[in-house]
Each structure stands twice: as structure tokens, then as C-alpha cells.
């Protein structure tokens, strides 16, 4: 009779089993989630603290941003007083600046110097010297903040002639203050190497070294987010317009005087309708896909190659070379250190090989 379990017991056992199953499941779910979060945290912590990431990429960003400033200053040299200095006061910005920056003391130097040709030219040359020093990575830690302040002062003194590239440039240059963008391919690096031997990127032993790595790597996170937002929002804003969805949007600006700076090239570029549509839809798709293409190596190569093409086309066809170069500069952080190193080694070997060949073909 004892083997006879009653119905009530069955029901009880069922609920106990169910409870244990659910309880165990939930506990294991929490344990799993906890482990996932903890592993995720550890990976993130190690990524942020152990080594500086994209050190060569950021060096290229520094060099290209520097070159973009040098290029802009040199190509505006002859017309500097006409467009930014005493010849430009008709636009009213010399009296009352449109941008907020000239009203901040730190960024007001160029604004104040506008009516004085000599002072303006002196500041302009100083800014050019700083841009060259920044490009070469000479005393970067000192040059960089001074260059940033004077650059903002210069570019924001005349709002009318500015573009969105100036904003991107300012934001990138500001965050780079907290990274080590003079670590590679700079005069600073060369000097350090002569004194202390080759630069290493190993896990720092000091706390200060670890904190510096955190700041450096978080800057890369911020720049990546910034670039992603710019491209994705650019694509989404465009997608709402008829000329973009109709596949002919790039034709319009290329036909205007302002953005069709090479009329004969504009004609060639827009002559074949399907190509216009490829360029129009291609810009949207590529901008939207860019951040996701960064996730794996093969797609990253395609993504970077297409964004490079996109920027070079803007630079040449629309007459915006320095805007494009600044964008290319920031995209350089997405090329891995190993790739940059390989490219540098390849270039060095090729230069050496051709020098060798020249020596053989033209003996002394």
C-alpha cells in the first residue's frame, strides 16, 4: 500500500520539479549574464589599459590634419586680407562676430587682429609655423594646444566662409589632445628613440602610464562614434530627399558655379545617367554601411576604399580639398597598426631597391 502515491503528491512533485527547473534556469541565466558582463568588462578593461591602440593611424591623422591646415593656409595666403583680414570687414563680422568663439577671450586673437594687416599677417605666419610643427610632430605636447587655440581663433573669425569640415576638424583636434598622437612618425619619436631606444607599446608599469592609455584609447572610441554619427546621419538626412531617392542628386551641385568648380569635369562625370545614379545611391549606401563595414577586415578594406574614393571625388569635383583631407585624416585610425607598418616597410624597401637599381644602372 505504501507504493501507492496519491494524486496530491504527484501534483506537489510536479510543481517542485517545475520550480527547480525554472529556478535553476533563472539562476543559470543570471550566472551566464553575470559571466558575460564580467568577461565583457575584463576585455574592455584590458583593451583600454594595456596598450595604446591605433598609434600609427593616429600619427597619420596628425600628419594629414596638419597638412590640411598647411594647405588651407598656403592656398589662402595671397587673399588672406581680402577674405579674412582688413579687406573683409564689409561683412560685419569684424565688428560683431557671428560665431561664439571670437567672443571667448582665448579664441579672439585673429578677430582682434583683423583690422591690422601687419598683426594679422604675423599671426597667420605663426599659425602656419605651428601647423608645420604639428605635422612633423615637433614638441607635440606643447605645440598641439597652442595650434588648436589659434586655429579655432583663425577659422571662426569669419563664419561666412566656414563649412562643416571646420567643425569636424576642431572636434577631432581637441580630443586628440588627450591621446598620444606624437608617439609614431614624429620628430618627438625620433628624439626619444635616440635617447631611450625604440618606442615600445607594452603594458605600462606605472599608474600614470595606465591612465594615459585609458585616455588615448577612449579618444579613439569618441572619434569612431563621431565619424559613425556623421556618416549615418548624413545618409539618413539625404534619404529623405527626392533628388537622392530619384538617383540624380549629385548632378545638381555639380552644375552650379559654386560646387561645379571644374565645369568640363562635371560634364564628363554626369554625362552617363547610370553613373550619376551609382554615385548618388552609392554615397547613401556607403555612408550608412560604413560603421558596420568596420567590423570585419574584408569589409573594412572595402569600406575604407570606397570612403576614400568618395572624399577624393568631393575634393576634386567640388573644390573642397581641405575638408576632404581632414575627413580622410580621421578615417586613418581605422587602418590597423600592422597595416600601416607593413605599408611603411614596403615603401622603405621599394625606395631602397630603386636606389640600388639606379646605382647599378648608372655606375660611378
Amino acid at each position, binding site marked *: 500500500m505504501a507504493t501507492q502515491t496519491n494524486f496530491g503528491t504527484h501534483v506537489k512533485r510536479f510543481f517542485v520539479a517545475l520550480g527547480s527547473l525554472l529556478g535553476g534556469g533563472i539562476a543559470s541565466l543570471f550566472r551566464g549574464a553575470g559571466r558575460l558582463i564580467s568577461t565583457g568588462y*575584463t576585455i574592455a578593461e584590458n583593451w*583600454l589599459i594595456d596598450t595604446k591602440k591605433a598609434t600609427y593611424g593616429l600619427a597619420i591623422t596628425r600628419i594629414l590634419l596638419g597638412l590640411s591646415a598647411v594647405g588651407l593656409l598656403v592656398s589662402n595666403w595671397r587673399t588672406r586680407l*581680402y577674405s579674412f583680414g582688413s579687406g573683409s570687414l564689409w*561683412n*560685419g563680422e569684424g565688428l560683431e562676430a557671428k560665431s561664439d*568663439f571670437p567672443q571667448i577671450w582665448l579664441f579672439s586673437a585673429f578677430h582682434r587682429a583683423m583690422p591690422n594687416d601687419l598683426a594679422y599677417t604675423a599671426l597667420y605666419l605663426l599659425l602656419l609655423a605651428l601647423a608645420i610643427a604639428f605635422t612633423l610632430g615637433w614638441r607635440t605636447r606643447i605645440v598641439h594646444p597652442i595650434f588648436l587655440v589659434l586655429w579655432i581663433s583663425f577659422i571662426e573669425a569669419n563664419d561666412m566662409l566656414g563649412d562643416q569640415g571646420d*567643425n569636424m576638424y576642431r572636434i577631432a583636434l581637441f580630443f586628440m589632445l588627450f591621446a598620444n598622437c606624437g608617439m609614431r612618425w614624429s620628430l618627438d619619436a625620433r628624439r626619444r628613440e635616440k635617447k631611450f631606444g625604440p618606442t615600445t607599446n607594452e603594458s605600462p608599469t606605472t599608474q600614470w602610464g595606465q591612465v594615459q592609455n*585609458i585616455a588615448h584609447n577612449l579618444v579613439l572610441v569618441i572619434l569612431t562614434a563621431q565619424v559613425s554619427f556623421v556618416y549615418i546621419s548624413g545618409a539618413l538626412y539625404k534619404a529623405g*530627399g527626392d533628388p537622392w531617392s530619384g538617383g540624380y542628386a549629385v548632378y545638381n551641385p555639380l552644375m552650379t558655379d559654386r560646387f561645379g568648380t571644374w565645369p568640363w569635369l562635371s560634364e564628363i562625370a554626369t554625362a552617363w545617367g547610370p553613373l550619376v545614379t551609382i554615385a548618388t545611391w552609392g554615397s547613401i549606401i556607403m555612408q550608412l554601411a560604413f560603421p558596420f563595414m568596420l567590423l570585419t577586415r574584408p569589409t573594412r578594406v572595402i569600406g575604407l576604399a570606397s570612403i576614400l574614393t568618395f572624399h577624393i571625388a568631393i575634393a576634386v569635383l567640388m573644390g573642397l580639398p581641405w575638408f576632404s583631407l581632414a575627413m580622410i585624416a580621421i578615417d586613418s585610425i581605422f587602418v590597423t597598426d600592422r597595416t600601416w607598418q607593413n605599408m611603411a616597410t614596403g615603401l622603405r624597401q621599394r625606395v631602397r631597391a630603386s636606389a640600388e637599381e639606379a646605382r647599378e644602372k648608372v655606375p660611378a
Partner: protein
Amino acid sequence: MDKEKKKRSHLVRGVLVALSLVTAWHIFASFLWIAPSSPLREIPTQKVLSSYMIPFFGQSWSVFAPEPINGSYTLKVRAVVDDGSGPVETEWVDATAVEYSMIQNNLFPPRAGIQAGEVASQHKAEFDGLTADHQVIAGLNYFEGDWEARLEEKMSSYGDAALVEEYMVTEHMATAYATQVARAVWGEDVQRVQYEISRQNVIPFADHHDPEAQQPPVQIIATGWRGLIVNPGQSDEAFADVFLRVYEGMQ
């Protein structure tokens, strides 16, 4: 990926968390700022967001969207010149053509080349915002004495004073620019100036292979004669040096 948990000092971990939070906030704020205005902005509130983003992180990426620019602006200037033998009306000079020639077929164009076009587009936007009554008055001649005050007063008497005030800013700028162009080209004997701003759209894409296709009609803004405006500190030489060199190079 390095999954090994390492020994770290509390200080470094603390700094890591603090800097990561600052980064997360910056990224969130940038996201909200760059994205279209949405109810999500209520989380930090619009005021907190803009006081963080402006001016340092100010930006806007709806460039060429939803529709890219599809027309060209022109700004022409003429003047009344009196060299002693009586007032003479000059021919029109196309200032936009002079400046655009600096950026066309040039791989490294100076920003100087877009000024006249900018003046024209800003001025046309303000002018188009006026009522028909205001526009008629803007077409009249105002060049004697404190003509700016009289023009503003007359326009305001037809209402929308705020609109008129905004318009007067670009009126001042366009006249000051026209004054520089006139002085550069015709010298110091310039007595008054007139500028003509227009916009012409490009041939629509659908017709661009049609050899018979005509550009859409020019939209002209007619404003009257104006007295000269020279802002304090403005250098005629610094302006004329560049403008005249390019203008004469085109002749």
C-alpha cells in the same frame, strides 16, 4: 581578445570608470545633437544638451540634404561716378564671376572665391522672406543721408518689424560689399551703388541631354540705388588688391 582578469590598482579602475562615464555622456550627447530633434532630447533636457554642445561641439550634418543646391547665385554691381564732369552711370560688373574665377579649375581654391555667392544667397533668402509691400520699397532708391534708417522705417511702417530688421542686416552687408567692388573698379569718385542679386536653377537632370533644353528663368531681386557703406576699419586697398587683380585678369 585578452579575457584574463588582471590585478589593477583601485585608483586606475576608478579613473577608468570615471573617464568611461564622461565618454559615454559625450557620445550620447553628440548622438542626440547630430540626430534630428526628437523626444529623446528630453532625457538630458534641451538646455543641458545645448549648453554642453555649443559652441565647442557644434555641428550639423544635413549637408546637401534633403535636397542639394540646384542653382547658381549672381551678384552684379554698378555705380554712379562723378569725376567732375557730371554723374555717369557705369556698366554692371559681375562680382560673382570675378570671385568664382578664383576657385574654378583650381585644385586648391581660396575661400575668397565664394564671398559674393554667399552674400547673394544670404541676401536673397532674407529678401524672399519679406512681404510684397516690403519688397516694393526695397526696390526704391535710398542713398542720401542716413538712408538705412529711413529705409528701415519706411519698410517697418508696413508691419513685421522683426522681419525688416533681419533684412536690413543683409542689406547693409550687400551694400558694403557693393561699395568695395565699386571703389575697386571705378575708384574714389563713386557716389552711389546698385547691386543686383539673382539666382538661376540648373537644367533639370531629366533634360540635361536635350540640346534644346533651356536653363530655367533667372529670378532677379531688384533693389534700388544705395548710398555707400564703409564699415569701420575696412581697407579699400586690401579689397582692391585682390579683386582688381582678378577682375583685370579676366578682361
